[in-house]
């Protein structure tokens, strides 16, 4: 036994601890270090489902009906398997449509109907009141047990109820919160979930392993006792399979549609990905907290407890054994379980009442001074009202029923919403009239079959007169409607409730039409399409939006919201574009929805933000047209999605496997794509490249390269001596940007240079015969003269004239050989890459000096016509190679000799070099192939076929042109044009 003031002090201390924890979590959120936004806190917050019903009621149910208590936890476990499909969809829709309550959700689905959301609110308040009463009853009952006296505990219950109401206000209504999330509250709920789990496990362990020899021992003992049938289900036991199935269904709908569950699972969800972990963490929590329920229930019975008192076994067993600490821990655990439910449920209910009932009645008084404070105080009153409503139920009706019985009544009430929500998420035809009729019918059945008998039992309504007539009739008996006998009350109420609900919902939805707004909302919910913004026809200013916010949230909050928006979007008050204003309007809509509900927020903004009647008509027409346009079937959209996904994968595969670097840049020259080959080429990873400017990553590309939006091809050299051929293609999209393709041609360049060198040597090879003749002649003369000089007797060497002449001749021959060797050496050395200012005529002279060594040149009649030509910037070695090639080809075409005519002249901004021969000419049929690599008209082994191809490449690199005119038997004329680059 504990003194009343000790327990009260404990309660107060615990609530203060909860508040401190909540405050800590909110402070962390404000500095950007949220400790709530993670899947573990999310999963623990869902455990608000486990109330004092779990703590005490489950044990009571297990002691009276055996395993049936498990349905309350198996239902949510099974439902959790569908969360990936169902809950994620609901969360997505709720976030996109700024929905903050289940009434809002249903009202929004059926055309933003305020009337429907009001009806849902009424049903929820009446349906949940027994559940709130259950918690308060549990607190009063446990207080009675702990203090050992019943007197005064009801009054104490009143004070505790009031205290809980105050704490609910502190947690959730300190200010008219513009955000629908309350991180402090959620963290406190998660903390409470841990406390109640620990408390339950401690008590369970104590009963199972300290008072008894384990679970097996308990089950064996109970099997052989008078309570043996508690271990079975079905015929001859306390719970039939039918009731089992009904209870399972009830708990499945409860976990989804209880207002507090909707609030923590949907509204308070900060990241939809948390659902994936919650799908198994939450059922795991349910499993663990239920492990010791049966051992405690059976243990209590075996220790001599009565089934009627089984609800309190968790407390009475440790107290009966003199273990007051465990009893206190149990009380704290049970209190945790109750407070969490009361606070969250009253908050959720008060939000629904405010959004659907109060605000529609008073929003037109928004001009009144201090209107935001009025709203806030009304919300606080509603919270207290909800809590005290529960208290009244607890003290008037609650004493006649067990905790579980009271809770199941509320669970049955939540099934009323299930057709409108679940079918409404997948069936576009479901309409407002159907939903209204279905929910109304379901509520009437629930009230008549469950609540009225409870009120009768409690004496609130008398069993006489009209009530006696209908209750005792065959057709309208609340326990056997329309004469249907043999069902337990849960199955009976569930069956008729769902039957009439579905009948009216589906029937009227088929028989009646939807409004355009309902059609639009149906598309948004069923197809999960994000809601389109209202067409920007309205004329509104920042001042008007701020004024609307000020009226409902207060001046300081309104200014904070607007300033925050301006700061985040880096815009000034004076320079807001229509797009910025539209975004601010959406933000205001979101914030007002969080505080007042989306239906009322829509009305307020429509009312306030200057849409004229004509614009309303136009708007309605736009919505109709939008709805018609949006009427794509799910299948077509999915098909289109699949095709798109396939095309995307196909394109990406091609781009990623291409042997060229492919990048895309936007209009700001920032990289938006960087393929795998670019990573290999540059060593820069895609993640490091994306969003950076191309000239930062590749500084060897000039920014001017992308100045004009035109197709270009260029060759660039990097500082590391790599060559890239770059193709630049602009996007046709107005947003601009380019696709740039990089090909590493370094190896190709090297090969071209080697080829050029080989060609040079090949050219020299062709001249070998002539060169050896040219060197051989002077060498023969030198040899002959030396022999003569040696044969002259030494005493007659006074003939100095002969000696002098001979030495001069020898010297001149040596110089001639040296010239030949030098010119060969000059020609044979590896070409430079530089372009320098040169005289084309000097290059031709150098070439002719070498070609003269070819024997065939003797039979050639050379004519030169060289005009006044400027110096040009060329690579002299490469141009010399071109001339060498052309002249040798001409010699090849004139084996018996002929005419060779070379002309150099200026033509505009170019120099033109014409080389004409009177050789055998080129057949017309092969003319277009002569510049192709490896094409040759010479016999096999006489030519590589690369000469003209290389000449063509060299002239193109000099931005020049080379043309050939020829006829078989009439000679060939080759014209080269080189631009005068200075």
């Amino acid at each position: 036994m504990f003194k009343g003031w000790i327990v009260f002090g404990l309660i107060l201390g615990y609530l203060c601890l909860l508040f401190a924890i909540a405050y800590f979590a909110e402070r962390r959120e404000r500095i950007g270090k949220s400790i709530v936004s993670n899947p573990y806190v999310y999963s623990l917050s869902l455990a608000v489902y486990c109330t004092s019903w779990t703590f005490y009621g489950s044990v009571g149910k297990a002691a009276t009906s055996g395993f049936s208590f498990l349905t309350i936890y198996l239902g949510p476990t099974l439902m959790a398997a569908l969360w990936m499909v169902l809950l994620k969809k609901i969360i997505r829709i709720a976030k996109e449509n700024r929905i903050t309550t289940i009434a809002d959700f249903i009202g929004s689905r059926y055309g933003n109907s305020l009337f429907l959301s009001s009806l849902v609110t009424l049903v929820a308040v009446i349906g949940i009141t027994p559940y709130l009463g259950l918690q308060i009853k549990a607190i009063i009952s446990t207080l009675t047990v702990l203090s050992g006296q019943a007197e005064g505990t009801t009054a104490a219950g009143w004070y505790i109820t009031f205290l809980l109401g105050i704490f609910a206000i502190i947690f959730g209504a300190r200010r008219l919160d513009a955000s629908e999330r309350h991180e402090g509250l959620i963290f406190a709920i998660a903390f409470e979930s841990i406390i109640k789990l620990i408390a339950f496990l401690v008590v369970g362990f104590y009963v199972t392993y300290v008072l008894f020899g384990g679970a097996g021992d308990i089950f064996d003992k109970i099997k052989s006792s008078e309570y043996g049938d508690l271990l079975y289900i079905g015929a001859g036991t306390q719970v039939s399979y039918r009731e089992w199935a009904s209870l399972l269904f009830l708990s499945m709908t409860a976990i989804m549609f209880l207002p507090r569950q909707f609030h923590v699972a949907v509204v308070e969800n900060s990241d939809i990905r948390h659902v994936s972990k919650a799908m198994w963490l939450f059922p795991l929590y349910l499993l663990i907290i239920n492990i010791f329920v049966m051992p405690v229930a059976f243990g209590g019975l075996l220790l001599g407890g009565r089934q009627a008192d089984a609800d309190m076994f968790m407390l009475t067993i440790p107290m009966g054994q003199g273990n007051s600490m465990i009893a206190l821990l149990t009380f704290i655990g049970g209190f945790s379980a109750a407070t969490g439910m009361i606070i969250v449920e009253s908050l959720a209910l008060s939000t629904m009442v405010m959004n659907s009932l109060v605000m529609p009645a008073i929003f037109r008084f928004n001009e009144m001074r201090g209107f935001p404070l009025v709203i806030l105080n009304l919300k606080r009153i509603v919270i207290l009202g909800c809590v005290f409503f529960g208290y009244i139920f607890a003290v008037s009706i609650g004493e006649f029923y067990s905790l579980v019985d009271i809770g199941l009544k509320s669970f049955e009430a939540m099934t009323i919403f299930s057709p409108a929500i679940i079918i409404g998420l997948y069936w576009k035809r479901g309409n407002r009239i159907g939903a209204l009729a279905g929910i109304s019918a379901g509520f009437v059945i629930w009230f008549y079959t469950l609540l009225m008998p409870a009120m009768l039992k409690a004496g609130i309504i008398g069993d006489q007169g009209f009530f006696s007539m209908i209750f005792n009739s065959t057709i309208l008996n609340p326990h056997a409607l329309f004469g249907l006998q043999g069902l337990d009350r849960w199955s009976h109420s569930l069956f008729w409730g769902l039957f009439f609900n579905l009948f009216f919902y589906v029937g009227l939805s088929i028989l009646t039409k939807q409004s355009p707004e309902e059609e639009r909302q149906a598309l948004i919910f069923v197809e999960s399409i994000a809601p389109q913004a209202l067409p920007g026809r309205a004329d509104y200013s920042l001042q008007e939006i701020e004024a609307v916010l000020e009226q409902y949230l207060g001046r300081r909050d309104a200014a904070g919201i607007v300033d925050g928006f301006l700061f985040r979007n880096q815009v000034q008050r004076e320079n807001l574009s229509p797009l910025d204003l539209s975004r601010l309007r959406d933000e205001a809509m979101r914030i007002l929805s969080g505080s007042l509900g989306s239906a009322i927020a829509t009305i307020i903004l429509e009312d306030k933000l200057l849409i004229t009647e004509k614009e309303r008509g136009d708007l309605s027409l736009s919505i109709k047209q939008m709805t018609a346009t949006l009427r794509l079937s799910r299948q077509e959209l999915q098909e289109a999605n699949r095709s798109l996904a396939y095309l995307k994968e196909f394109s990406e595969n091609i781009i990623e496997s291409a042997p060229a670097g492919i990048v895309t840049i936007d209009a700001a020259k920032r990289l938006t794509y960087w393929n795998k080959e670019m990573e290999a080429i540059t060593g820069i990873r895609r993640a490091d490249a994306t969003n950076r400017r191309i000239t930062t990553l590749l500084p060897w590309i000039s920014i001017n390269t992308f100045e004009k939006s035109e197709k270009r091809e260029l060759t660039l050299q990097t500082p590391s001596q790599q060559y890239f051929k770059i193709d630049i293609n602009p996007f046709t999209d107005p947003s601009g940007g380019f696709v740039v393709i990089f090909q590493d041609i370094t190896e190709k360049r090297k090969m071209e240079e080697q080829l050029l060198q080989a060609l040079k040597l090949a050219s020299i090879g062709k001249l070998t015969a002539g060169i050896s003749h040219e060197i051989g002649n002077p060498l023969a003369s030198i040899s002959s003269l030396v022999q003569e000089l040696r044969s002259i007797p030494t005493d007659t060497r006074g003939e100095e004239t002969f000696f002098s002449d001979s030495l001069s001749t020898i010297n001149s021959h040596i110089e001639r050989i040296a010239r030949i060797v030098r010119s060969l050496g000059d020609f044979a050395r590896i070409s430079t890459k530089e372009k320098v200012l040169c005289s084309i005529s000097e290059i031709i002279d150098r070439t002719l000096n070498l070609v003269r060594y070819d024997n065939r040149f003797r039979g050639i009649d050379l004519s030169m016509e060289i005009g006044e030509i400027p110096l040009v910037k060329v690579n002299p070695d490469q141009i010399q190679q071109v001339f060498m090639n052309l002249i040798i080809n001409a010699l090849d075409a004139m084996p018996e000799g002929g005419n060779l005519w070379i002309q150099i002249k200026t033509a505009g901004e170019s120099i033109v070099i014409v080389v004409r021969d009177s050789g055998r000419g080129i057949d017309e049929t092969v003319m277009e192939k002569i510049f192709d690599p490896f094409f040759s008209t010479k016999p096999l082994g006489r030519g590589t076929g690369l000469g003209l191809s290389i000449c063509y490449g060299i002239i193109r690199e000099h931005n020049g042109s080379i043309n050939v005119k020829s006829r078989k038997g009439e000679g060939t004329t080759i014209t080269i044009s080189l631009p005068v680059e200075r």
Partner: protein
Amino acid sequence: MKNKEFWIFLFFLGTLLFNWPFLDIFSLVLPYYFFGVWSFFILVVGIVATLKETKGRDTDV
């Protein structure tokens, strides 16, 4: 089997396992059956949800 179909299948399988006739079949060992199947169900959901999360696959209906 697609993502969505898998979860619907698991839901109905679980509902079947926790109803008649399986409860009747295992009536003599009900406590062990309940907690055994319950644990196994949670394990399957946990493994599959974690795998799908890793692969980045999402489901929406």
